[in-house]
């Protein structure tokens, strides 16, 4: 599994050579952008909504302490147990301890089953491998997550984890891992997964969910989903654990209504998701379903670092819709795995240096064309390309011997002396630019498009022309 953020450059290079991957990513992201544009066009006040959402998230973040305290107080009052974790290790330990305590009494010899719904925060802290190490069977129940889980991969998109795989990839995977006949009809494949996962649900003792928003005024963790797996996670297991980043809190239900207008439209081009779940309290005496025990784990893991940085703070407004991935010319060519980290695309390129450090993720802010289409599309108006520029300047000034700089100073020679490498590097941005300029992909009024006109791109690079014009005998093939 590719998961080393320091290898982003080599991952990008190999992703660019994988034609099938690029086709799959392009098809999926085009689809999402088209659907998004349709439902956004229905709302003449979309820009007003973005302004309101940005303001709501700003208020949530500037008053973070107050909101978190209220969330804690109100949730506890309803019987939800609140936990705090400074970093990934602590969050994992807390969740692991809850799971161990909850299953100790059951005394069964089989590995206890944990049914998990999709959650980026749990991916971020590496919860699943940890719990597996503790002797639990952890089942990802979102179908996309399930597919990447049994493939032994990580998700390649924030909201569409298996977007890089084709139906035949999934068909071969199921045949291989589940012992079923090869099949490439999505309807049948989903039917197979539904059956396998339904059996797991029936036996699940613990449910783990993410949190899209946590409403402070009532102590309510809220989650959105489409498949119904989140509903099952919240209905069947005896114990439910919800994991959230500290920035997910919002003050009121009224705020939530505005954000619920923007999130599904931006993420999947839906007016609303198939379900919106309000995990309000544990089951009461006489009720027929729902968890008897509920836990809310509030995780920092680097977020207070971002909060303390006036230039980067606004990244905490993010509601993880994934729209900036879909529109990013780099993501569209490389897919998510090339970033070597759980959050790809523009948002990932900003979060990586903050969460992982400039030394490990100094290359990430450079995986961007700075075209500004991410800032244009962001429902909470995060100025992503400005944040990327800011981080770039930090990398060049703060990291002595940063790999990019080394490439300029000492590596230049080796690049120049290796024509194949030079061509590969020179081809990279051109190839992406081609996509934009030839209208195969047009950003909806990108910021740079407003202020400049795009220069026509030379049909071939200098090196290609050189070969063609001056050394006829050395014409490159194809």
């Amino acid at each position, binding site marked *: 599994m590719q998961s080393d953020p320091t290898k982003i450059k080599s991952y990008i290079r190999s992703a660019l050579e994988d034609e099938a991957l690029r086709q799959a990513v392009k098809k*999926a992201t085009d689809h999402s952008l088209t659907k998004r544009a349709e439902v956004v066009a229905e709302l003449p006040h979309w820009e007003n909504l973005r302004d309101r959402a940005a303001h709501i998230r700003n208020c949530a973040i*500037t008053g973070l302490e107050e909101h978190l305290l209220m969330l804690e107080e109100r949730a506890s009052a309803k019987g939800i147990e609140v936990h705090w974790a400074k970093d990934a290790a602590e969050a994992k330990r807390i969740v692991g301890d809850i799971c161990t305590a909850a299953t100790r009494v059951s005394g069964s010899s089989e590995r206890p089953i944990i049914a998990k719904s999709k959650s980026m925060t749990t991916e971020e802290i590496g919860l699943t491998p940890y719990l597996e190490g503790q002797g639990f069977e952890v089942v990802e129940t979102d179908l996309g997550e399930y597919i990447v889980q049994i493939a032994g991969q990580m998700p390649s998109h924030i909201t569409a984890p298996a977007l890089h795989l084709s139906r035949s990839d999934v068909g071969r995977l199921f045949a291989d891992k589940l012992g079923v006949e090869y099949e490439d009809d999505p309807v049948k494949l989903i039917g197979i997964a539904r059956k396998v996962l339904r059996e797991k649900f029936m036996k699940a003792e613990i449910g783990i969910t993410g949190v899209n928003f946590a409403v402070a005024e009532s102590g309510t963790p809220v989650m959105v989903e489409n498949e119904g797996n989140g509903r099952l996670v919240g209905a069947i297991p005896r114990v439910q654990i919800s994991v959230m980043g500290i920035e997910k809190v919002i003050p009121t239900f009224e705020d939530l209504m505005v954000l619920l207008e923007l999130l599904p439209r931006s993420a999947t081009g839906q007016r609303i998701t*198939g*379900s919106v779940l*309000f995990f309000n309290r544990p089951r009461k005496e*006489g009720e027929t379903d729902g968890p008897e025990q509920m836990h809310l784990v509030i995780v*920092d893991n680097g977020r207070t670092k971002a909060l303390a940085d006036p230039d980067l703070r606004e990244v905490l407004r993010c509601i993880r819709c994934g729209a900036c991935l879909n529109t990013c010319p780099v993501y569209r060519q490389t897919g998510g795995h090339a970033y070597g980290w759980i959050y790809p695309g523009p948002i990932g390129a900003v979060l990586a240096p903050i969460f992982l450090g400039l030394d490990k993720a100094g290359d990430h802010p450079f995986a961007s064309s700075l075209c500004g289409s991410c800032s244009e599309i962001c429902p909470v108006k995060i100025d992503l390309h400005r944040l990327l520029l800011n981080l770039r300047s930090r990398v060049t000034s703060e990291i002595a011997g940063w790999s990019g700089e080394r490439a300029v100073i000492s590596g230049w020679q080796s690049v120049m002396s290796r024509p194949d490498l030079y061509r590969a590097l020179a081809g990279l941005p051109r190839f992406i630019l081609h996509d934009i300029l030839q209208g195969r992909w047009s950003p909806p009024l990108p910021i740079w498009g407003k202020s400049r006109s795009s220069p026509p791109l030379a049909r071939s690079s200098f090196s290609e022309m050189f070969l063609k014009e001056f050394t006829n005998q050395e014409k490159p093939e194809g």
Partner: protein
Amino acid sequence: MEKEKISRDEILNAIRHATDNIGVPERPEIPTPVGKKAKKTLHQQFCDMLEKVGGETRVITGKKTIDSVLKEILKEFKGETVLLNSDPELERLSIPEIVKDTGIVLLQTSEGTLDELSKSQVGITTAQAGIADTGTVILLHTGERGRLAALLPEVHIVLLKKTNLHADKSSAIAVLKSGNVHPGDIPMTWVTGPSLTADIEKVLVRGAHGPKRLIAILY
């Protein structure tokens, strides 16, 4: 536990420190949204929106009674089991009697094991409110009005009073808040259409984990 308490204080301290000097963000001048001029009635809007996402709708008017509409729907499920919550509103509408009339086996959610419940083909529930501009039903789970009847079977039939329809999310929340149940106190699910996935090549497939069909009866 002690360690968690320390972490809690450390996180809150870090937050206090980081946000010390930020003023409250100024509220931007935002024009009030241009209200959509809906010419349709709320229930027409609700039906249009629900159908757009693959849901089915039936409206009770004149000769079309709940009895006749429900029997019509249940015709294709002869010999199957129907899952019902014990819900005073379902009783009031005589739903259990109507179901029994059709010769279909009736199973109360409180009476079966999880495996038994899971084998039912149809679930019938009420919704406590609805949102017209998205085609959403709001399920409040109290007492024996649980989540499973609307979730385990492949077909979910939901009964919703027309008078409990609200124009949009915000008005629905405002009404719930002004009533005697705060939307933050009772487990609540908003459902819009059948369960869906587009995880394989963005092909839309219904019935991912939940119902393949959602039929709303407005009365």
